[in-house]
């Protein structure tokens, strides 16, 4: 039987209240060991306060060929960005 440990993706939340971020991958026999291995591999320099792991095969990803239809439509919605609007200086901070 093939006994290679499955691949896990590792997400770590850093010190400053940011969201968990993907930092890399590793191998482990199960989720508990994956968390421990992530602690040993990816937080050696005090990088994190919280770890998520998910087995790589369970990640669903968008398809690269959909790049156009998925992301280009938002390019024209410039009014969603605050810089679209000119507010006179006298109005103050907004």
């Amino acid at each position: 039987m093939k006994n290679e440990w499955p691949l896990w993706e590792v997400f770590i939340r850093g010190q400053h209240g940011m969201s968990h971020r993907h930092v890399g991958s590793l191998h482990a026999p199960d989720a508990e060991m994956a968390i421990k291995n992530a602690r040993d591999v990816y937080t050696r320099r005090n990088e994190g306060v919280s770890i998520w792991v998910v087995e790589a095969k369970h990640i669903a990803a968008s398809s690269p060929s959909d790049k156009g239809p998925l992301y280009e439509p938002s390019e024209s919605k410039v009014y969603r960005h605050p810089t679209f609007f000119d507010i006179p200086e006298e109005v103050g901070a907004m």
Partner: protein
Amino acid sequence: MYAQMIKSAGTGVKSPEEMTPEERRFQAHVDANEKVEPKDWMPDDYRATLIRQIGQHAQSEIDGQLPEGNWITRAPTLERKAILLAKVQDEAGHGLYLYCAAETLGISRDELTEDLLSGKMKYSSIFNYPTLNWADIGAVGWLVDGAAIMNQVPLQRTSYGPYSRAMIRICKEESFHQRQGYDIMMKMAQGTEAQKRMAQDALNRLWFPSLMMFGPSDKESVHSAQSMAWKIKINTNDELRQKFVDQTVPQAEYLGLTVPDETLKWNEERGHYDFAEPDWKEFFDVLKGNGPCNTDRLTARQEAWKEGKWVRDAMMAHARKKAAAKVAAE
């Protein structure tokens, strides 16, 4: 440079007319400095070459543990022992990041490992040289990591996303490696007569092998031209070697050590040092397996893999039993 003599798959750079429409789109994407991601379409040769290159890079990090690990139990102070252990541990981490990057290309870590152990996949020639005195640990950090950084910094911009991200992480961690090496060299060079002798001896033995790390001149190589077009190689070997020499010679002078090259001379006109080429026959001998430590290094890795099998199997078996028990309980 941890990747040496990587032969690109295929027959060299194609002209736009020779390319398929998919290849043309791919090349335009790379030319625009955009990243290639695992699920994107890529030429088979690009994939195969990357697997070779990242694989060799990963194996070098793993094998690189051995010459330095050779001194962990003999480090002269508790602090030096901790620093060295942390450094060698980082190399294992770098190997791990790179394996994971290679795995996104559709090859498993076990397959890569088997290729290393069978001798099919090479690793950098430098790790087939011995570390004989404590100053070697300084010289490895200063010269070998110095040469590696020279190659890895530009590779942060490489076209393949997972490789580029691994290199960014590695470079961030690597920055302490060269400094700790130079720090050891300073202590030795300013130390007792015996320590100075160790420092000079280490430089004598490791200078030319360090220059070999960049590989032979590849100005004429079709493989390098293809790799550069794909942006999985950023500079020529000669460029990097020159940069390394220019940077390192003043550092050796600061230490009061003599670079073992009588022809070494500053060339005002070129704005660079002139220096002697390493013995390329020796280099090819080492690649063929005839370096001073090839057999020992490979045997050490083979034994670790073989003797670790029962552990890997048992931990997987336990995880399966646990998962089955959980399902049964639900």
